[in-house]
């Protein structure tokens, strides 16, 4: 009886919480299933699973939110998914093996990381053309763009560097050494700092974008979890400058960090091998993709609690939220 009462209460709390949540749609790329899961952001129901190209990883919404761009890594191109019809309506060039990309704030250009040929490819979305190829370090991985779109930071897996690229000239103007296998680069809202995660090093380096000095190195320690399992990948920063979330891979946890003091406040247990994350537009919720447990976790940003797990396809990778 007690259990039933508790279940009813939990469900009721869950419903109240989700009713208060912003109405959004969540899109998740399933790397092994070659599909995109479409999730109702209120009921957390998977509405559709759409077949797409091979090995979909990085995904991004167009500025008008009508299309989803998908890195089809094994097809060596980007696919354009119409969000009205949920059909792939075209492709964009990307260079070989596109893993992930970022979009210029004006919504016109895409910067694509090509792991295979040590390039960052710049694509004009409207024209469907490659406008530049920037040679970068060995095995380019993560990409972060400054809020004004002037500086692109690219991480290189092999040289362990964050390369600072001027998007006006496509020249690298600085290189910053970080810990082993840097993955994700994320700018703070004010553009003053860029946070870079190091998967093997197990740390996050905070770089001052003016001096290009590492001003802080954040490390993680979770009771009962061996050090090798702590592999930071995804980084998300709230735009009020208060909180940072770092996905710790096979530790199955997301670290919650104070953006000002760099103190780790909490480690939330989400799903297995958590890599990528994204906020809802109001930043009240954070969605994480968990590649081994094949699900998406929903984090309540205010209460710092994991609210829900949504089963999706195999190896969920990228996640975006459309208003």
């Amino acid at each position: 009886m007690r259990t039933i009462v508790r279940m009813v209460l939990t469900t009721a709390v869950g419903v109240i919480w989700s009713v208060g949540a912003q109405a959004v749609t969540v899109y998740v790329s399933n790397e092994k299933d070659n599909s995109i899961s479409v999730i109702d952001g209120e009921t957390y129901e998977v509405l559709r699973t759409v077949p797409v190209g091979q090995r979909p990883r990085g995904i991004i919404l167009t500025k008008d939110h009508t299309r989803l761009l998908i890195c089809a890594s094994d097809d060596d191109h980007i696919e354009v998914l119409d969000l009205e019809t949920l059909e792939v309506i075209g492709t964009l060039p990307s260079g070989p093996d596109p893993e992930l990309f970022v979009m210029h704030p004006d919504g016109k250009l895409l910067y694509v990381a090509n792991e295979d040929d040590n390039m960052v490819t710049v694509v004009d979305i409207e024209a469907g053309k490659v406008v530049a190829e920037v040679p970068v370090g060995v095995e380019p991985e993560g990409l972060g763009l400054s809020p004004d779109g002037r500086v692109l930071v690219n991480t290189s897996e092999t040289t362990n560097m964050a390369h600072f690229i001027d998007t006006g000239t496509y020249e690298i103007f600085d290189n910053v050494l970080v810990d082993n296998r840097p993955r994700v680069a994320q700018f703070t809202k004010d553009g003053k700092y860029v946070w870079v995660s190091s998967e093997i090093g197990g740390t996050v380096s905070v770089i001052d974008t003016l001096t290009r000095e590492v001003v802080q190195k954040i490390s993680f320690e979770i009771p009962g979890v061996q050090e090798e399992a702590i592999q930071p990948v995804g980084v998300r920063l709230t735009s009020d400058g208060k909180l940072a979330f770092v996905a710790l891979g096979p530790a199955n946890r997301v670290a919650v960090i104070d953006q000002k003091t760099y103190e780790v406040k909490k480690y939330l247990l989400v799903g297995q091998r958590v890599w990528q994350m994204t906020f809802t537009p109001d930043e009240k919720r954070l969605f994480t993709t968990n590649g081994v447990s094949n699900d998406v976790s929903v984090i309540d940003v205010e209460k710092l609690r994991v609210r829900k797990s949504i089963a999706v396809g195999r190896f969920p990778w990228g996640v975006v939220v459309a208003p």
Partner: protein
Amino acid sequence: MYRNGNPGARWRQVIAIALGFLGAGGAAIAAGEDPDWPCIQRLVPEISAGMVWAGPPLDEAPDWRDDSAISNLAARLADRRLPPAKTEALVEEFAHNLGTDNDRQLTMLFAAILDRINRERSSITEGIKKFTRRQRALASRIESALAEIDALPDEGTAEQEARRAALIEQTRWDTRIHEEREKSVTYLCETPVLLEQRVFALGRTIQGFLD
């Protein structure tokens, strides 16, 4: 059967195929820290509690070994033949009948499951390492047979020719067995992951019933 045609070309073919396998084995070894670990997944010797459990500390709970009901239920839940829907029903039934020390009993149950699954997982990882060692032994047998074939004269005595034929036959079989076994590596390597998935899902279900 190798009397006709060019015997030299045939040796070379066998050698090329066999060396291809030996080379493939070598690449896997270079990637991992443990030379006997053939998988692309990094070898994590044990699933630690913190990776799968955010409830009360497992080591502070009473010993589940003293509770036969919990031990038995853990054994049923850990068994991979039991589908996930059934495990949820079993956990719910267990939680439903608990008294005041609900959390303590659920924590004991999960400690028992983790222990059981970790033991099963480590016997599997040991098995995978043993598999690698056997493959390596087979590869070295192929290698020495090829060396011996190579050392035999082109036009040898009847005894030497018989030896050559026997070695070729052996190498053909060994190469085939090596190849067949090598195909199961991906599947073998996914088995520990299946156990990790299972223990995580069970932990999540049980945590759902904590107060």
